[in-house]
Every structure is written in C-alpha cells, then in structure tokens.
C-alpha cells in the first residue's frame, strides 16, 4: 500500500485516494479524432516510471499529479493540479 503525500494534507494512507488515469490521457476539447482516440484508448503503460492523476477522494477531495515507479511503487513527486500543473 502506498503512503501518498497529499499536497494539502500531508502523508495519508492510499485507502483515502482513488486513481483516475494517466497524465498523458487528458484530451484537449479540440483534439483531432486520431489524437483523441490515442489519448482515450491507448496507454504507454510502462514497466517503470509514469505520471498519473489521483484524487484524495476520501480526504480533502483535491486532484493531484503523481510521478511514481510501477514496479517498486516509490513516489518521486506529487504536485497539486492547478493552473501551473495542467497535465
């Protein structure tokens, strides 16, 4: 289980969080069809490091971007999603 450092609440148990999707799967509203299909339906899915969108659903409710390793589960960094960090 992960110990996720929420940007607002500090270290919290993973049970309070929900995984949403990977950062590269966010589609601009004016995306071309092939671009939208690629973002919606395909994933890099690396056996290694990727950036993901999580939400502190059962806590403060905020969204965040987490960069972590999918084999060791080590979290590299967590950033709050806001104007500065739009994935």
């Amino acid at each position, binding site marked *: *289980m*992960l110990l996720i450092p929420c940007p607002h609440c500090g270290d919290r148990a*993973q*049970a309070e969080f929900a*995984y*949403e*999707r*990977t950062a590269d799967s966010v589609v601009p509203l004016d995306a071309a069809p*092939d671009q939208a*299909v*690629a973002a*919606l*339906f*395909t*994933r*890099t*899915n*690396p*056996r290694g490091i*990727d950036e*993901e969108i999580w939400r502190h659903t059962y806590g403060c409710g905020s969204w965040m971007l987490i960069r972590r390793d*999918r*084999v*060791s*589960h080590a979290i590299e960094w967590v950033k709050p999603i806001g104007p500065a960090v739009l994935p």
Partner: protein
Amino acid sequence: MAKYSALSLLRGAFNGQSHWQPAWRHPDPKASYDVVIIGGGGHGLATAHYLAKNHGITNVAVLEKGYIGSGNTGRNTTIVRSNYRLEPLSRFYEFSLKLWEQLSDELNYNVMFSPRGALTLGHSDGDMIRLAEKGDAMAVQGIDAELLTRDQVMKIEPCLDFSHDARFPIEGGMIQWRGGTARHDAVAWGFARSADSQGVDIIQQCEVTSMVVDAGRVVGVETSRGRINAGMVAICAAGHSGHVAAMAGLKLPVESQTLQAMVTEGVKPMVNTVVMTQSLHCYISQSDKGGIVFGGDPDNWPSYAQRGHAVTMELAVQQGLALIPALSRLRMLRTWAGVTDMSFDGSPIIGSTPVDGLWIDGGWCYGGFKATPGSGYLFADTLANQRPHEIIAPFSLDRFERGSPVDENGTGPFPNHR
C-alpha cells in the same frame, strides 16, 4: 512421448517406477523459427500445441522469461465458465469450455477439470432480473443456464448466510452446471508436454529484450540468450503485453494492474460450487486440497509489482465472510498477486497489429485462465491462416477506434472501472 496410462503405471510398479521421463526438453534456441511465441504461460503453450497439432507448424519456439506457468497461469483462481451475456464473449468462452471438457484426454495429461457448477448469487430484484436476462442470452446460444430460487440455492450451498439480517440477503441465483475449476499448473505442464513432443522448443530463462524490425516488419527478437529470427512473432505475455508491444513501438489499449487471490487452510468439503455474486466482486471456491480460494477486484491502479495491497484484500475477505460467516474461523495461508493487462472494455485483444509479422493475444483482464484452450486453438488458427478466426474477430486491436467495444459490464472505457 510415452503415453501416460493405468497400464504404464502398473508396469512401472514392477520396476520401481523407473520409467518416468522428463515431460519436456530444455533445448538451446535455434537461430531461426517460423513462429516465435513470447510468453510460456497457458496461452503461449496452448497456441504452440494447436499450431503443431491442427496446422502442422512445428518449427516454433516458446520463449519464457522465468519458468513456464510462472505468471498468471500459476496465480489465478482456476475458475472455468462461459456465463457471459454478450454474444461475442459467450460464443468464445463456450468454445473454450467445450475444449476444457475433453482437454485431459486430448493432452493425455490430467488437468483435473472439475465441472462442479458456477453459481452466481442474486441479492435483490434487480440482480435477479439481470441474472434472468443473462441466462436467457446464454440459453439462446445453447449454453446451459438455470435460474434458481432461494430454496434451490439453499440446497446447493447450505453454508451461505440465509438469515434475515444477512448483510447480503440471498434472493436466488443462476447456475451454469458445466462450469467449475481445473488444476492451473497441470494446464501449463500438459500443453508444454504435448507441444514439446510435437517438436516445439520451449526455451525457459530467456527474456525478450527487444524486437528486430526490418522495413516495418518484425523479423526476430533479441533475447537474453541471443538473437532469434522469426517468420512471425506472437505476444502471449499477459500483464506484460504492453511492455513487450512497446518494443515494436506499439501503444496498446491496456493498463497493467494487480489482481490478488488468497487461500485458507484446508477443511472438509463445505463449498460445493464456484460461488460468485451479481452485486459484489468476490468469488469463492474450494480447492481439491480443501483450501477455500478467494478472489476479488483488481487493485484498480497501475502496477507491475506481483504483490497486492491490503485494501483490496480486506474488501474481498469482508464480502466472503458476509456470504459465508463460518469462514471467519479459518486461517489465511497464502495471498498472491498477478499482473493483469486490463483492457478498456474488459474484453481480450487477439489478432493482428499494425506492425507486419507481429500478432497479439492479450488484454485478458481477469478472464485469461478459462480462455486458455480456446484462445490457443483460435490464435493458432489465426497465425496459421494470417487472418483472425471469425470467433475472435470481434476482439481485434482496432475495435476502439472503430467504436465497437465489447463491454460486458457496461462501465465505459476505463480499465480501472472494471
């Protein structure tokens, strides 16, 4: 290959059972094969077996990073059934179930297929309507399905909590009597032994590190044991499908997540069928050794670590205990996890890829074990004829861009919402 039989056992009794031979060879890889299969699990070995048996293609190598059956083939809950509502899925899984029924004979290897019944419980009027609808859809396909009343369920599984204050009251159920369980390791070993005896090279401790692409066509693989040229390359890598496909520059519609299972200490027979439910995501069966085997949701977040997290495990156990309170006194012996390639509609991905010479059999989510013989049979047919077999045609890689997913759960295009 020496045939296993009662007679050979008896004959062996007179010479100290010294007649036993290794069930498969450990060959060094050749420089080139007609077909290279990446992944020595049930699906890869079954594909090799049917390529040799049905199509006479025996210049085949199965490359396995660890030892055969060490991935999801050895990590599932061994359930075999074909009770699906959508026609492409029920048609495929029924094809597979029919192969299961005669698999021990076909392989001359006891896979211990035990059709003890796959029971789905209904906990509300809504559940019973869904079950009746699914049962009707199955019956139309010629698949056995029987809708059960509460009293009938009580006769089949008396250990369930039928009290009036049960957390999940049982209103009835639906059973597929031909469903059941099988011995998962024996499936890998049986297919391996049969494929090997027909000339297929099973190469263990051989990790594929990259693909050799020439003018847009895959012509071989680089491995930890050197380069191997191939007429065709077939990916049967389950949770690592995406990882392997990326070596050829492909992005697949899958996300790899952890799926857990667990088993208790052995007890006398108490769970007679495979118990599943329409509302919960918990499935319970009793192994031949007597252990109660639990399975639940995937962990619902991406991971390649073959270990699960406690939240999901607790949820599965809570649901199991609510259904069968007597289990609360049992000790949990082991828990384990496999990496599943969760696709975006919960259905598999079989067939060609945009890269010439590269074929895929993956995206099995948590339905891969019961598909093993069917997938091997149809994928071998697909490889031999260089076109998707009609039963697996709905599961093509390009179905998402064409807008025709096969979404059994109706939960939309999110692998973590399955």
